[in-house]
């Protein structure tokens, strides 16, 4: 135990002396939180719209007004030809185009059906789906309003939905993304630092000393990882506090459970880094592997940005070995839903299994490397 502390102390001193790396580890997360929390937004607004109004009647203008007043669309151009629309679409200067053919106004007046065309720029499928929904709703409601004005009749749909949103009533993306960011940054900090730390010894030639040292592999591992664990927990808690202060991230659950979840997750991350360090010979290779195995999966496979349920089944299976996925479940549960361990214990269990597994593997490999 004492030896582990000695290793840990030396490691800590090395960390502190490398000012720049240290500042990256501690400050970068908070800075990014600021930047991304404010910049990231899933809410689809300011959809650039061009209009080609071939009708030019009160009714057609009412339709255009409905789009503009909806708050989702920004009217950027009124054109007179289809070619102009094509040009604007190609250059991504508009995301949607509304084409109102002639005789729409007259059709409504005389009780006949008519149609308007909405062309959506599909190159961003995410926005396109949302725009499609907006456009449909707007046209349908304009249609109903025009009819009401015509007939003075109240037409109510036989069935309508009344939505209520739990946990995040204003559907603020920031609240959703922040937990993911915590996972992401914590993973990178913990995994990368640990991976590089051991590989550096190999590269610089001090590995021989490590092999000769009269210290058990377990004690060495403990000593090596404790400083990084401590640092990344501090980092993660700093992010949580910053998010609460700046983005109104709520805290509806227990702080203790939060700390537990964060520690378990970071322990797994450290283990990942350690394991990678036993596989790589140079720092560059170690880093690239961390990117593939930790960085990108955490970003893309944890459900942080892309919903897992929408992925093809084989990929969904892969997500079972991404610890960030479980961490997110626990984190959202504690912070947003206010539930306790009784609800998300399977996620914590998975984190424990992962951490133990990866640390165990790393220990075995390290012990073997030490001969």
């Amino acid at each position: 135990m004492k030896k582990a502390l000695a290793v840990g102390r030396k490691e800590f001193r090395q960390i502190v002396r490398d000012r720049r790396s240290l500042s990256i580890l501690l400050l970068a997360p908070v800075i990014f939180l600021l930047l991304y929390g404010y910049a990231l937004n899933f809410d689809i607004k300011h959809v650039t719209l061009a209009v080609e109004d071939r009708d030019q009647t009160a009714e057609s203008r009412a339709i255009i007004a409905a789009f503009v007043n909806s708050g989702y669309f920004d009217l950027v151009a009124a054109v007179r030809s289809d070619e102009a629309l094509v040009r604007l679409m190609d250059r991504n200067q508009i995301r949607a185009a509304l084409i109102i053919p002639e005789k729409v106004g007259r059709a409504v007046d005389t009780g006949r059906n008519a149609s308007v065309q909405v062309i959506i720029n599909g190159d961003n499928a995410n926005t396109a789906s949302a725009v499609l929904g907006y456009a449909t709703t707007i046209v349908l409601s304009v249609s109903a309003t025009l009819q009401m004005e015509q007939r003075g009749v109240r037409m109510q749909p036989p069935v309508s939905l009344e939505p209520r949103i739990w946990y995040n009533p204003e559907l603020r993306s920031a609240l959703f993304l922040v937990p993911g960011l915590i996972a992401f940054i914590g993973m990178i900090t913990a995994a990368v630092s640990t991976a590089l730390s051991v590989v550096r010894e190999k590269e610089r030639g001090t590995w021989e000393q490590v092999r000769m040292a009269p210290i058990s592999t377990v004690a060495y591992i403990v000593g090596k990882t404790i400083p990084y664990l401590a640092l990344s927990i501090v980092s993660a808690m700093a992010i949580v506090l910053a998010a609460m202060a700046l983005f109104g991230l709520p805290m509806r659950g227990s702080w203790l459970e939060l700390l537990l979840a964060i520690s378990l997750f970071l322990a797994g991350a450290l283990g990942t880094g350690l394991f990678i360090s036993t596989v790589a010979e140079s720092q560059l290779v170690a880093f690239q592997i961390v990117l593939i195995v930790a960085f990108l999966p955490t970003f893309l496979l944890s459900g942080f940005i892309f919903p897992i349920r929408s992925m093809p089944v084989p990929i969904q299976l892969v997500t079972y070995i991404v610890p960030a996925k479980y961490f997110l479940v626990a984190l959202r549960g504690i912070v947003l839903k206010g539930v306790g361990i009784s609800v998300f214990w399977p996620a914590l269990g998975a984190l424990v299994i992962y951490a133990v597994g990866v640390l165990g593997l790393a220990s075995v490999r390290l012990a073997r490397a030490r001969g």
Partner: protein
Amino acid sequence: MRRMLFLIWKELVELRADPKLLRVLLGAPILQLVILGYAATTDVKNVPIVFADNDRTPASRDLIERFVGSPYFTIAGVVSSVDEIDSYLEHDRAWLALSIPAGYGQQVGSGAPATVQVVADGSDANSTTLALGYATNLAAGYAQALAATRPPPPSAGRIGAIDPVIRVWFNPQLESKDFMIPGVLALLLLVMTAVLGSMGIVREKELGTLEQLNVTPLRRWELIVGKLLPYALIGAVDVFLVVAVAIFWFQIPLRGSFALLFAMSMVYLLSTLGLGLLISTISDTQQQAMMTAAFFVVVPMIYLSGFVFPIENMPAVIQPLTYLIPLRYYLVMVRGIFLKGVGLDVLWRQAVALFAFGIIILSLAALRSRKRAA
């Protein structure tokens, strides 16, 4: 000039002598693209929805059937009381909960308007918005069908309705895959080459050979370019590999010219490698270089380039910043060439921007690191 060729030769020899590295540099992008190409989807499908049916009439069952039949939803369960819904949402077993009140069937039968409550799990705002949208549209369609089966009120007269006819260009099936995968391609290239570039100079610094190079007549710009070219070669191979995977494995249509795509990718690599090299010149250790590259180059680029989050939605103060991000321009180009089949006549602005970027960054790298310490 000749000196530089020797440097390039040395880099290639070193690369060949480290097979693990080579495997990672060439194999990783493919592996990543395959897994992540599938994962990077913003389509919302299989939304788990739970129903609390307090009515239990043919009418309520009819409504439920509508959802069952839709590919967007999977039924998580049908319960009989509202309280049971809580546990579904808490345990993430359902995202939406539809609560059909008692008396629903009667209201619908008598022609009175009925309201159904839907509760959504807001912790995943994006998916929730979309899921709610689907649900609303589904209900609206259902409502219209119901209305069509009823006789119109006598005082109404003939009513003309306006229907929206919607067409989606470039991506008619709204497959986010076609949109995402070129993006993932760009992302992968960025990640690999920025980190690779960041090792360029600092590795020699750490191992002590940089000093030796400084004593020789090798000029600084010769060193920078000499490091750049071998990495660009690897980058070029990577481009080939990932484009091949995108086209043949993921069946992403390449509607534009491959030559243009390749050329623009190389210009893009100029910037990413350049950024890596610049970082290399200001770092003392490999660890610093790689972490700086990852945190201050790659991560900001992912978020601010329009890869997932549209730039139009960002706050006005942030938007000008995005002009400094090479990935932004490359994304427009790669998506344009794949999905729209556009050419240089449309993309020339992006090409110029990327090229200028690359040159500026490389010059900065050459200027920033001097052979003689001041």
